[in-house]
């Protein structure tokens, strides 16, 4: 069944079963490999994308439920990888295996969009659904703070 989606500001039509999780449409139909499969139950956050600006687990989101809401994946977070979060992640050398990091960054992006200067407690809440098996949480927290500061600087210029 053809389904129309708006992914990273481009309209795409995919022909998949309506109960296919968005994750597998992104990965295997649209060849957007950034969102990862980790649990299939919305427990780990590796598949996190933004739908209508909110962080959503795409592994438990049926493609038919997306509707006209815009979907943003890590590939569409910035044109050239220069979103303050992406830069902070690189500068602070956050990743170990790196598998969870796209999902972490997308959850952090949703957080910063409504809380430009999050406290540690706000970070704990917003990032609580994203696991890092390698345990890079200390740097994830630091990178969010760094990106928040960079964003503030950019906004005041």
């Amino acid at each position, binding site marked *: 069944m053809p389904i129309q989606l708006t992914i990273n500001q481009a309209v795409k039509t995919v022909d*998949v*079963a309506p109960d*296919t*999780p968005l994750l*597998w449409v992104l*990965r*295997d*139909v649209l*060849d*957007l*490999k*950034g*969102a*990862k*499969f*980790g*649990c*299939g*139950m919305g*427990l*780990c956050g*590796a598949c996190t994308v933004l739908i209508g600006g909110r962080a959503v687990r795409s592994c438990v989101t049926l493609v038919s439920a997306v509707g006209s809401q815009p979907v943003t*994946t*890590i*590939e569409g977070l910035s044109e050239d*990888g220069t979103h303050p*979060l*992406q830069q902070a*992640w*690189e*500068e602070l*050398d*956050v*990743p*170990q*295996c*790196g*598998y*969870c*990091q*796209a999902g972490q*960054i997308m959850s952090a992006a949703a957080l910063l969009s409504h809380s430009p200067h999050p406290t540690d407690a706000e*970070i*704990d*809440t917003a*990032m*609580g659904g*994203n*696991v*890092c*098996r*390698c*345990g*890079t*949480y*200390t*740097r*994830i*927290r630091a990178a969010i703070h760094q990106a928040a500061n960079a964003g503030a600087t950019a906004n005041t210029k």
Partner: protein
Amino acid sequence: MRMNRRTFLQLTALTGGGLALDLYSLPLAAAQQADAPPELTPQAFIHIAPDGVVTIMARASESGQGMRSMLPMLIAEELDVDWKDVRVQQADLNEKIYGTQFSGGSQNTPQGWEPMRRVGAAGRELMIAAAAEAWGVPTTECTTAHGRVLHSASGRSVGYGELAAKASALPAPALSGVKLKDPKDYSIIGHSRPGVDNHAIVTGKALFGIDVQLPGMLYAVIEKAPVFAGKVKSANLEQIRTLPGVRQVLVIDGGITPAAFTPWEPGMEPGIAVVADTWWQAQYARRQLKVEWDLGPAAKQNSEAIRKRAGELLKTAPGNTVRKYGDVDAAFKSSAKVVEATYEYPFVAHVTLEPQGATAHWKDGKLEMWSTSTLPGNGRELVAKTLGIAATDITTHMVRSGGSFGRRLQNDYLVEAAWIAKRVDAPVKLLWSREDDIAHDAFRPGGTMGLKGGLDAHGKLTAWRQHFITFGDEKNVASGGGIGQNAYPSGFPPAYELYTSVQPLTLRTGALRAPGDNAYCWVAQSFLDEMAYAAGRDPLEFQLDLLNNSMVPWATGEHDPVGDHEPTGAAVLIPERFKGVLELVGEKSGWASRKKEPGRGMGIAAWFCHLGYFAEVAEVSVDAQNRVKVERVWAAGDVGSQIINPGAAENMAHGGIMEGLGHMAQEITLENGVVQQSNFHNHPLMRIRQTPKIEVYWRKTDYAPTGLGEPTLPPILPAVGNAIFAATGKRVRTLPLKRSGFSWA
């Protein structure tokens, strides 16, 4: 079994600080390694383009330890180029030109430190030779800097890019004769370099095993029995074949003979492979399967019965003496105080965040594989054997993985992908679900330890007796469940006995990060803490005092390959280094002046494994509901003279600590052979809110650098357990924490 040094290094790498019994159940790398390592050449590793861009081949697989950055850094340093001009490319499997491509046991640093630097230095000498020849000057008058050869006498200089074609045709110098830099001149080694794949990671580029995409590729899943090695009796295969997107449904008979001992690579597990146009279609179709299974003997296994049997075995005469010296019985008789305790820890699963999987393409009698294995040579051999093809007909591309933690040392998923590919007329990507990944893990085996220690009137340790109940049969111990005669504190108490007894286990087990050590450290360092309290002494002072005893050396020879150590002597515990990290962490954590208040406490522990020394202090708070929050952790490590990539090293230490905390709340249990845990809700990982403030300190010593993947992990478990005791007066003797009445806050 006679082992040469190379085989020994490979094996001990996997088994940690000399878990001798394990060696006999891990006939691993011998299969993939020629006895004589190849002579490495700069031409194999270094490619320089005319514009001066240097491509360095990363020989090891990357699953998060930063090997893709670290090993090329060693080459780049001695090649004398700027890191900004370096591009790193992952090498395919070819151990004839790259040497070992095994990643595990924290071995890439000790095995790469010398050879990789020499490869770089040999490349530099080739550049000098090419320039000197062109200029008609002696090589001794030439120097290098920033990827250029300089001749100061004439003021000439030339970039490596212009010399590359000429240099590559020159004979490579013998690595043993090349001159290495003085460490004070390092500009890359010892300077933090972010991971070379970071940009691809943060922009979501296809990079991991799961991301491999080939034209016309199909996707596969495998339905396996709910218990290990259960066989397919019948199934609704015809119905499944009619479902949307399904291309093939294949019954795997498998190659496992269920027995009391399950080998490291027991053979293919039986099951039903579903191949479809997309992964989701394959998974969807698979869920419609109705299978009648022949469950076999594994269905008789129950965790409660296993624990009960372990308790019985503790009360009977031990099956095997691992080490014995001094008169332990006499020492207990004359001791002022004797302390006894039983410690128990569970099976746990690896849960790499990327589930197991692989991609394979069978075409014209040849196989091409995209593998995340950390023991890729062994993977190729297993595939060749299973498929009945020549290893030389297999090409292995090494792909970054979303974590290994020891899991990808085993190659079961790779064999499965290859087996399916040989029956499908297209490339096939196999991907396990999370539930598959937990149910069919190669589990860290659980264990039970009975301990008894004696103290004299001055509170000094007089004797130590340890009886370890593990798994195996008369001849073999389950992978990851062996223990060696050097198990700390072996050698330090004046009298000592270490015994093992086994019970059968029909289940795949394996190496989980710091195998053996991730459990034995918790047991030994917790019980030492008990002894210190029983003696009325400070735990740090008590252990430093114990380490002052003259160490009773263990016998070398066949049963203790660790005695056959490298010239650094690093494979044998060096008390000065063990004490050094304890003292450093004591100083940094303010141990001596720590406050004693109810509900809050600090604990200390240390360990030596995988050639590295770590001591850690944890500070915890425990609320009225016995919920534990780890507030702060101080870690002190000694991995030799040089931290190669300091930023990555600190990150790795954080990771070891976080993983160790994770182990404390995880368990895998069996009911009628069925693993009761299935996903992250019942096999939890630590979350960001549970992350303590962590400080990492290095104690630099004169020893050659060694690895960090593993030794950072073990001490955190007893450090936290000991801190819980300090806070509450309750001793954690059973893991997971909930079995001792605690949980994470």
